[in-house]
């Protein structure tokens, strides 16, 4: 270490405002924002808003499955306490990687022996085990085929699936989120297809039964499955019978494609959006797919019938949306609104539609735009160039909450991070789209916006709960 002599006098930071210098590189006006990344890379900050799910939460969606993580202590810390906070420690175990394992090159043995040891200790053998390896496994050249073949031979009655906590490789292919949503369904075993079975895949939260998606499916007498409603492993396995798989969460798309390639069926991806044309197109695609399904099953086509037509009457639904916009605008007026990327996968789409309807959307909290948001980005840039884009991970982001803007002016935040950074208790506490889809996403969100305007929430405590909707106890 260098000899640095006497240190300068400290200025304790605590929560003190007047950080505009530190924040200035953490936000940029829409007109100056590059696509897809308005901000360069660099060091990253992590805000206390924790509601989005992680791979522990998502993995637990497989009913009765047991999770085993094999990694260094620093990596284990977060996942084991995630499991503890969601009261799922009875479905969670760990194998700690130590330095000698890296040096001795026995990482494969550690995994095999560690998983074996844990399974032997468990009072009840699980039907499935999700084995999560970490970055160090990739850097020590472990052979996954050998490891998992050995485990399967040792325990033929248990289904093993390789899962990954390897953020070092997050830019080397599919993202960790995409991989998790793919592996979640990799346990499904090929079986005979049920021509009227449909599964919605890739969400952490159950799809809202009032969503257009589910209403169309139900109206066509189809048998709907979703992992969030499976209570037993065999129920989860029934999803393999589906002839149609539907995803609408962007990170689920790759998984859906991989699934049908492996076990058959058709996968359609319907992008989440607030744009009427996009919604209409999605519902059309859905109806078309259902029509094919019913035709293959030699059932009459109900999608064009009066019954389902009534339910998915686009014009009627659009009128409902417009009414909701009007009602909400009347209430919130020109209250400034901020939207973040944790609320839903298309914050720019939400912003664009709210702005078109006269709402005072002033900020977006996001670090990059997704490919799906290109059109929304162009629209905002052209028509609302003064919208401020705030980074959530930029080093300067650390100091945003201390500005305490929510105390000086009433802000409405759509999303936890926006609420935290603005320090406002008037917010919509929803993550990952909340299971909403289609026109219903618009009307329900606007209802939540009205509620948020009228009632404060305990933002400080709510946003810090990890994995919202996953039985967090904190």
């Amino acid at each position: 270490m260098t000899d640095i002599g006497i240190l300068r006098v400290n200025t304790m930071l605590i929560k003190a405002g007047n950080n505009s210098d530190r924040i200035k590189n953490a936000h940029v006006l829409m007109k100056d924002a590059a696509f897809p990344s308005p901000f360069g890379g660099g060091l990253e900050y992590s805000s206390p808003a924790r509601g989005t799910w992680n791979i522990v939460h998502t993995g637990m969606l497989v009913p009765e499955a047991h999770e085993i993580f094999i990694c260094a202590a620093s990596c284990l810390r977060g996942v084991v306490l995630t499991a503890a906070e969601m009261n799922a420690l009875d479905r969670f175990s760990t194998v700690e990687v130590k330095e000698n394992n890296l040096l001795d090159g026995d990482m494969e043995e550690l995994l095999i022996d560690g998983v074996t040891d844990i399974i032997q200790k468990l009072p009840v053998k699980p039907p499935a085990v999700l084995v999560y390896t970490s970055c160090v496994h990739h850097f020590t050249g472990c052979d996954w085929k050998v490891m998992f073949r050995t485990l399967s031979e040792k325990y033929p009655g248990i289904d093993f699936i390789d899962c990954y906590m390897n953020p070092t490789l997050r830019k080397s292919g599919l993202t960790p989120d995409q991989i998790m949503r793919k592996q979640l369904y990799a346990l499904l075993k090929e079986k005979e297809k049920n021509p009227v079975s449909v599964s919605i895949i890739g969400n952490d939260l159950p799809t809202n039964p009032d969503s257009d998606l589910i209403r169309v499916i139900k109206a066509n007498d189809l048998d709907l499955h979703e992992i969030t409603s499976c209570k037993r492993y065999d129920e989860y396995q029934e999803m393999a019978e589906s002839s149609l798989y539907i995803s609408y969460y962007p990170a689920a798309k790759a998984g859906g494609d991989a699934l049908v390639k492996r076990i058959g069926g058709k996968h359609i991806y319907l992008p989440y959006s607030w744009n009427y044309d996009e919604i209409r197109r999605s519902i059309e695609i859905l109806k078309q797919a259902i029509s094919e399904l019913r035709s293959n099953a030699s059932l009459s086509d109900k999608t064009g019938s009066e019954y389902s037509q009534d339910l998915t009457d686009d014009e009627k639904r659009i009128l409902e949306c417009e009414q909701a916009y009007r009602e909400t605008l009347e209430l919130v007026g020109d209250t400034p609104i901020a939207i973040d990327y944790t609320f839903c996968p298309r914050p720019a789409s939400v912003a664009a539609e709210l702005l078109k309807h006269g709402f005072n959307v002033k900020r977006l909290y996001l670090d990059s735009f997704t490919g799906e948001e290109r059109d929304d980005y162009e629209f905002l840039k052209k028509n609302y160039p003064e919208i401020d884009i705030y980074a959530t991970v930029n080093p300067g982001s650390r100091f945003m909450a201390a500005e305490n803007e929510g105390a000086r002016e009433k802000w409405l935040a759509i999303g936890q991070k926006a609420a935290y950074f603005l320090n406002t208790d008037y917010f919509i506490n929803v993550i990952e789209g909340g299971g909403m889809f289609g026109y219903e996403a618009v009307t329900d969100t606007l209802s939540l916006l009205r509620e948020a305007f009228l009632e404060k929430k305990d933002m400080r405590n709510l946003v810090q709960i990890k994995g919202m909707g996953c039985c967090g106890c904190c």
Partner: protein
Amino acid sequence: MRQTSGFISTYSADVFGVCSALYELGGMIVMHDASGCNSTYTTHDEPRWYDMDSMVYISGLTEIEAIMGDSTKFVGDVIRAAKELSPEFIAIAGTPIPAMTGFDIDAAAYSIEAETGIPVYGFNTTGMKSYIQGAGEAFACLAEKAVLRDVLKTDNRSANILGLTPLDFSVNGYAESVCGFIEAQGYQVLSSWAMGASLKDIARAGAAHENFVVSETGLKAAEKLKEIFGTPYRSGIPVNGEFMDVGGWYHGTMRKNRLVKINTEEYKGTEVLVLGEGISTLSLAKYIFEKKGLSSASFASTDADEDEIAEAILSVQGLKTVIADPLFERLLKALKTDGQIHDISFIPMPHEAFSGRIYRKNMVNPVDGFYTTK
């Protein structure tokens, strides 16, 4: 099998110990890691994260950077952030992948300091050791680098308190109580390392007559201050108004045994076992024995795995009560189910370095609130 854990959590790691130790001192701390370390630390191991701004970041290491051994991005990013944010110092700490690829933290520190003129400390943490080591290194670094050398001892009796982090003391007033206790013994507390103290306070530490080490994280710094300033130190925590000196069970920074029985009346066995951080468990066990007349033992579990902890529990003859973080209760239940133990009661004593924030509302302040077993 060693290293597996069917039932219990894991202790906070060395890299997080560094962050926790240096948190309040106005510096910028960078964990050289892909992602995950920052949210893990700030969610579970840093109760000050919401209310007290501190510049703790992650570098966002990618696979190709790790493969190619490319440190230029890391160094460049830290320099850029430092120029924007003007920290008092910079600390950079390693994690498993940089450790594996032999990333030269000290060289990176040198480059950053050369460019910015800001003092930079490099910590060769690996993410595979406990927080005791990381925080210990951080405090030792302060002792070496941040304490003014040419100082006179104070006229009045003064002391520093070493080893204060929320990992061991939470944020429930326990740390303040410890300081209050030392003051009530007639000492002027010059600095408390490092909760409620500034770098300026720490710079004065050489002037103290005595140091109090209240967690194993403070031992290295105590030894360093003794070496540089000749300052003696005592190890222990105050329990229900009395200081429990446990230094006799340590050789410098090394605890003589992980499992320490306070009494040696073998025929009675050992009725109470306290699991957790070394100095606090010894202090509590000593209090139980001296003040409550119960044979007791302490097991320093911060670098032990589940099997070792189970072995320790099973090795104690006559055990009636275990005092430990609530997340250890599952292990006891498992041992009971297996028939390996019978009729052992459990008294929860939450420890942030183990269960994080889960039981924060139930944190005990032993200075005046340690519940007794009988």
